[in-house]
């Protein structure tokens, strides 16, 4: 069974139609990278999959359940889908540990001990054990983003959505976050990753999708997309990336 099936997804903001019929299927344990120009709708797509944006048309099926059907409990759906944002969005008034345990305790109703056990295990795994009592503003951007990833993982999601998670980071902090994602991929996590890090996408993705004008214009293996793109628009996009020195 596929982990995620999106069919005919359409989304407009007022008169601006951002997504014009997205079709995407992601298998379990697959890592799919979404690339595309800024403003092409990558964030919007991920937010739609997490039901943070109401959609205009189409269906989204996660592990066999149509989450866009009427009457679906959005809170229950979101517990199975983790999302990590470009700007971290940690809760600034809570310690790292409280950030990570909030949703397991309140949404999954785990006991404090169970939630903390889960959190500490993840923090240790990603080298953040000594930060558990720090507040977010005392952490570097890379550490904050790793905490945000851990916070999403603490819900034990079936699917992770990562939205340009390294774009807000100083260059020297990018690697530590990418390494976390590599580790997740190696552990078999199903992921949809919007990214500008082409080298990383090439390295980690099972499949790369190029988003353009509200549709997935071209998709294929990293090798196919990066070395033999078929579409002229894909070629132009990659050309610009190369000129910017990012591939």
């Amino acid at each position, binding site marked *: 069974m596929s982990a995620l099936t999106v069919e005919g997804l359409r989304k407009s903001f007022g008169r601006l139609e951002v997504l014009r019929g997205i079709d995407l299927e992601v298998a379990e344990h697959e890592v799919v990278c979404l690339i595309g120009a800024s403003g092409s709708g990558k964030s919007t797509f991920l*937010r739609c999959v*997490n039901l*943070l944006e109401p959609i205009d048309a189409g269906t989204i099926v996660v592990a066999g359940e149509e989450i866009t059907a009427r009457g679906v409990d959005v*809170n*229950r759906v*979101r*517990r199975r889908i*983790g*999302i990590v*944002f470009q*700007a971290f*969005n*940690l*809760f*600034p*008034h809570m310690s790292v540990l409280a950030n990570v345990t*909030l*949703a397991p305790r*309140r*949404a*999954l109703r785990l006991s404090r001990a169970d939630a903390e056990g889960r959190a500490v295990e993840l923090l240790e795994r990603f080298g953040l054990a000594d930060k558990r009592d720090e507040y977010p*503003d005392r952490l570097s951007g890379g550490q904050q983003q790793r905490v945000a990833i851990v*916070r*999403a993982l603490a*819900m034990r999601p079936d699917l992770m959505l990562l939205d340009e998670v390294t774009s807000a980071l100083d260059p020297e902090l990018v690697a530590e976050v990418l390494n976390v994602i590599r580790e997740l991929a190696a552990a078999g996590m199903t992921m949809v990753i919007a990214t500008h890090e082409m080298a990383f996408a090439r390295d980690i993705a099972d499949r790369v999708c190029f988003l353009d004008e509200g549709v997935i214009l071209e998709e294929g293996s990293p090798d196919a997309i990066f070395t033999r793109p078929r579409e002229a628009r894909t070629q132009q996009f990659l050309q610009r990336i190369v000129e910017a020195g990012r591939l």
Partner: protein
Amino acid sequence: MPEPAQLGSRRSRILGGPRSEGARSTLIAVVSTVVFFGLVVLLVTNAPGWPEVKRSFFSGEQFRESLPDIASAFGLNIRLFLVAEVLILVFALLLAVLRSVPGPVFFPLRLLATAYTDLFRSIPTVLVIYILGFGAPTLQISGLPTSPFFWGVTALVLVYSAYVAEVYRAGIQSVHPSQEAAARSLGLSQPQALRFVILPQAVRRVVPPLLNDFIGLQKDTALVALIGPVEAFRASQIEVAGSFNYTPYLATALLFILLTVPMARFTDWLIARNRRRELAAGGR
């Protein structure tokens, strides 16, 4: 070790703190303050009517005589204030939350809460106190309290909640929507996101303006005198009526000053601390 001191002074100059320029500026401040107030005292005490004013407003004897009664009546102001404050904090938060819930289903609630805040911010506090204090007991509904304390507190709560709700609401709106998105994306419900993520941040930010409103509330407890209870202002009126000397009013003013000034200083201190924290976090 001159270095830490230099660092300290540079830092506080950036923050615009009062201690920035060191000993020299302290001296200037002291001298100019003494000169200024010296001039004011000279001017006032040389005014033609000063002896008369001194006799009727600054009588030491009258002060000593009236202070015990006024001070014990001031206890009632403090009780009015404390009871009203707790109720306002709760009721206003409820109003603010009602005004902030999204969705067309809740439109009537939002409308009601909006109408409430508009209404009670437009009627003078004195009128609300009169209407409730004299009107409500006249209804003679059995079970409805008739004590002026009860209706005084109720009036203050109704009026101040309208203001405080707006303060809370500004705080709620100042929390970036991405915080709610992050909370909801983890599977927290809307009320959970509000309770655990948005309100704690909102309330923290509005503590200084809240305290500011409560300074106003402390003073307005004197208005409850108009419907009967002998609080400090009423007590001083009684003293004045007996002696034809206005010193008791000054004694009352002094009590209010003693209550308010620490709160005002505390509020300023909190604001300064928040600012320092924001600068520290922003500079990272």
